[in-house]
């Protein structure tokens, strides 16, 4: 091996290094480069400029294509229309969910109990005060706002519900005559007019350990059409109770 390598000079000179590789033309080139150094510089920046230009061109081209794609995706196509409907449906479902929850919560307040706290606030004279010749019950108002506030558009709607539309009447009736109320089932349906709903509540009532009976209470609910009050009740009334109210208010 050593012997072979010691012949490396001859071997390379005869093979890979064979011939003269540094000719007069190379000398001329070197002289030229030395005398005109700028010439080389001019050539040096050209490929760089070309690369940079191409790169920028590519970026602009890609950006343009992307923009076009975005614009074309803005135009309604069948697929997107379908998607649009779907989103609207989903939104509708969400709305329904909000409205149905509101109705369910109000019905739960009405047909679970009796709620002794509510009845106490309603009937106990100690909560009543007279301000400017007007009877007020701040504790009751506070309680009602707390319980119904999240579901009604404003407090006046709650007042109307309690005073005129029979809100809490089943509670007081049950309390007065010793009935226990429980909510069995609720069916809520949206009417043709999107902000109106009807409900049927299956209410169980029981007295003195007797067998529990059920009655269905029907009613209707109107929701606000104002954007700010979306999903809030503006009207809530019982339409039909299949005699439940009469049963609860009689002592026998």
């Amino acid at each position, binding site marked *: *091996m*050593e012997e*072979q*390598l*010691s*012949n*490396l*000079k*001859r*071997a*390379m000179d*005869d*093979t*890979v*290094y064979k011939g*003269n*590789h*540094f000719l007069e033309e*190379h*000398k001329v*080139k*070197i*002289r030229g*480069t*030395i005398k005109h*150094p700028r010439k080389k510089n001019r050539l040096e920046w050209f490929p760089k400029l070309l690369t940079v230009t191409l790169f920028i061109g590519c970026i602009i081209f890609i950006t343009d294509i992307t923009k076009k794609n975005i614009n074309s995706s803005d135009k309604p196509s069948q697929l997107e229309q379908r998607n649009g409907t779907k989103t609207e449906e989903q939104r509708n479902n969400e709305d329904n969910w909000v409205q149905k929850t509101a109705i369910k919560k109000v019905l739960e307040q009405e047909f679970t109990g009796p709620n002794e706290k509510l009845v106490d606030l309603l009937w106990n004279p100690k909560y009543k005060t007279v301000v400017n010749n007007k009877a007020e019950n701040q504790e009751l108002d506070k309680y009602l706002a707390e319980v119904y506030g999240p579901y009604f558009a404003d407090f006046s709607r709650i007042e109307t519900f309690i005073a005129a539309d029979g809100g809490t009447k089943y509670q007081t009736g049950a309390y007065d005559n010793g009935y226990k109320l429980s909510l069995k089932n609720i069916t809520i349906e949206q009417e043709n007019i999107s902000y109106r709903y009807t409900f049927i509540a299956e209410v169980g009532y029981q007295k003195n350990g007797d067998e529990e009976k059920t009655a269905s209470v029907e009613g209707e609910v109107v929701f606000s059409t104002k954007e700010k009050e979306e999903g809030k009740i503006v009207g809530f009334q019982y339409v039909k109770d299949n005699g439940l109210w009469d049963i609860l208010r009689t002592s026998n």
Partner: protein
Amino acid sequence: MAKENTENNHFTKNNQDEWLEIIMSEYGERLNRLAFSYLKDWGLAQDVVQEVFVTCYNQYNKASEVHYFKPWIYRITINRCKDMLKSSFLKRYYFNNNLLKHFINKDLSPEMRLVLKNEKEKLSQTVLSLPVKYREVIIFFYYEEMTITEIAELLAINENTVKTRLKRGRILVKKILGGSELYGRTIE
């Protein structure tokens, strides 16, 4: 490395242009071969040598203070070659004729095959096929006939490192040549 007194005279006797002519005549071919041993491409080697001479010319004043001109100009060439080897893949493979070489090598003519069978060619190609760190010490030691100390100085590495690389380089050459000999025998 032997002191080359004659070289120092170039700086004092001649002006810059004449000095360039002298060093080109004296070192042109040697540097070209040196660069080729690194780059394995005559085109690139010529480019490197051109740059080296331009650098020398521009650093005429500095060069005139150099006592050992040969190691100085060798070092510039080696560094430039290594820079080029480190440069981007694209530059090495797409902007020189290496790419062409790959195609040519795949389709060797029968004459070329005969040439490759030549022992000298085999040895040269084997040395050139070694990794740079072994290739350079083998070439400096056996081709340039430098001493271990000179190689260590030139490459700015430890003498023991030079020895180790030489040893490993020899083992590699032996391994490659051994394989090819065996191959040759079975053919014959």
